[in-house]
């Protein structure tokens, strides 16, 4: 599934955590690719491995206990192809923040309380672009203006405690975009924000993405957010991608029982429900522990359609049409 135009190709990524005797397979064979300007949403519940996937790409997981055992992450940037997994730590540092940037979930703790806003944005600029203190400070103000922070000059001299969550997330975005990265990894950037601010941040990310022709890997568990930002969607469950396709395919015509159940458990207005009196459906059971994955299809224990064949062998990702693919042996019947 190698796409020659891809900016980044994650090929059979496997990340495990060793804790004593146990081996937890947090990411168990994840593959996807992403082109410039494209947004891929990585969707899944807590513990499905989506954040570990993101951190594996950045190689920011603490090792040990984490270990990336397979297989390669090809980053084709500016005409050169590199396997991020074979780079030295030093080479990796040159890519982090410069070519691949990251925005985190928790804007309240993402900023160092003892440095001013301006200093924190300038940090990456000085590190990667070698700007002088003054030039970096000036560019930091420009970046603040670009993420729509009013009065950037004054704000850049302030400390994070004076900013609201939404403002801090804007600052984080400004810091991430400082070096015009080719790929932005956004790890649940809107989860900690209230809904109106969420909308603003998504809008901001989208417009900046277009402006910079940047690829975006958007990690989220919020399907509402997916419908707003994603071009393509990959649904993760227990460390594997169970279904992938375009936004419309996944949201309107899901084939995997897990995707269906996930979409079914999104709360809707009373008038939009088929049966207004029914309780909100939930998926029975819970995500299996990454240390004890069930054999075969990892979703089988919770799946209403499971048959003995489901647990016999690990199902492969089967193409349905175009880019739409599903990891379920009974997808035709769903």
């Amino acid at each position, binding site marked *: 599934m190698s796409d020659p135009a891809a900016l980044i190709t994650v090929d059979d990524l496997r990340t495990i955590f060793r804790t004593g005797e146990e081996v937890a397979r947090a990411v168990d064979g994840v593959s996807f690719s992403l082109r410039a300007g494209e947004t891929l949403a990585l969707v899944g519940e807590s513990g499905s491995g989506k954040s570990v996937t993101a951190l594996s790409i*950045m190689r*920011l997981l*603490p090792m*040990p206990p984490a270990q990336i055992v397979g297989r390669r992450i090809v980053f084709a940037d500016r005409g050169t192809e590199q396997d991020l997994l074979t780079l030295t730590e030093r080479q990796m*540092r*040159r*890519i*982090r*923040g*410069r070519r691949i*940037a*990251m925005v*985190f*979930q*928790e804007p309240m*703790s*993402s*900023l*160092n*309380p*003892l*440095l001013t806003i301006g200093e*924190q944005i300038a*940090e*990456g600029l000085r*590190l*990667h672009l070698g700007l002088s203190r003054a030039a970096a400070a000036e560019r930091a103000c420009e970046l603040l203006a670009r993420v729509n922070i009013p009065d950037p000059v004054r704000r850049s001299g302030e400390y994070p405690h004076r900013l609201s969550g939404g403002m801090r997330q804007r600052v*984080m975005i400004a*810091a*991430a975009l400082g070096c015009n990265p080719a790929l932005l990894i956004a790890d649940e950037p809107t989860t900690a924000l209230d809904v109106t601010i969420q909308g603003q941040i998504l809008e901001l990310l989208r417009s900046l993405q277009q402006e910079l022709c940047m690829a975006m890997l958007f990690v989220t568990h919020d399907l509402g957010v997916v419908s707003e930002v994603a071009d393509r969607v990959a649904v993760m469950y227990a460390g594997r991608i169970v279904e992938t396709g375009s936004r419309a395919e996944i949201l309107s015509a899901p084939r995997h029982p897990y995707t269906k159940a996930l979409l079914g458990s999104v709360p809707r207005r009373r008038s939009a429900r088929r049966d207004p009196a029914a309780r909100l459906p939930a998926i029975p059971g819970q995500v299996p522990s990454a240390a004890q994955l069930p054999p075969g299809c990892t979703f089988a224990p919770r799946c209403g359609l499971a048959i003995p064949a489901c647990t016999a062998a690990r199902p492969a990702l089967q193409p349905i049409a175009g880019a739409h693919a599903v990891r379920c042996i009974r997808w035709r019947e769903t």
Partner: protein
Amino acid sequence: MARVTVAVSPGLLLLHRLLRRRLAAAALLVLVAVLAGGLLAPWIVPYAPQRMDILHRLAAPSRLHWLGTDEFGRDVLTRIVYGARLSLLVGGLVMLVATGCGLLLGLLAGYVRRLDGVLMRVTDALMAFPDILLAIALMAALGPSLIDVVVALATVQTPRVARVVRGAVLVLRELQFVEAAEALGATDARVMRVHLLPNLISPLVVQATFIFAAAILTEAALSFLGAGVPPTVPSWGNMIAAAQLYMQQADWLILAPGIAILLTVLSLQVLGDGLRDALDPRLRRLMR
């Protein structure tokens, strides 16, 4: 409605908060007095510290000798003031060396996972010995000079600082701004210097005052046991050790240095508590 930013330096703010607590203010006053006495010793004391006056040996406190004289007729007040000099010098140096080394070790242990096990086992091993015992053993190996005392006491105190710093780093390193800095491509050294170190200052300052106090106390104990600075040097521990023989006839000999140690160490402890509260407004609010 423009908010006005009043520029107050953090140091000034801290001092203000500290002085609002009466006990801490008193402690600071005592320490300033001791410090001034120690620094200005040659100019303020009435006699030379080694001047003997055999005719007036073991003289009770009087107008001539405010705190009396010792078994060689040396002025006790003079020796107390000179002793303050030594105590502060030892305490201060030990504080600097121990917090410096402890900070470095704690940062490395807390942030560089590979080093954690090794460094913490070493500190555990050092902390397994009782303070005094370890200090005496080190003194026996090193020698009796002032520098040796500082090295021995710093070795005893460093593991404590390392532990505290490591604990704070373990909390800090999980905060997202550390991860964010790593995601920006910052080196380990840079993360430690720019993002961890400044956030460690509060616990470090508090720890430093306690180490100052502990160093003074241990130094006195070492001198008392004869394992500290040479007995001719006026130190509070030496004075108490020498006074043992004359305790029944001349109780001031033991009381004067004893009270000096008590006041100084107590003040440092109170100051440390006050600093801790002043540096952490949240904790203070909870305690009220």
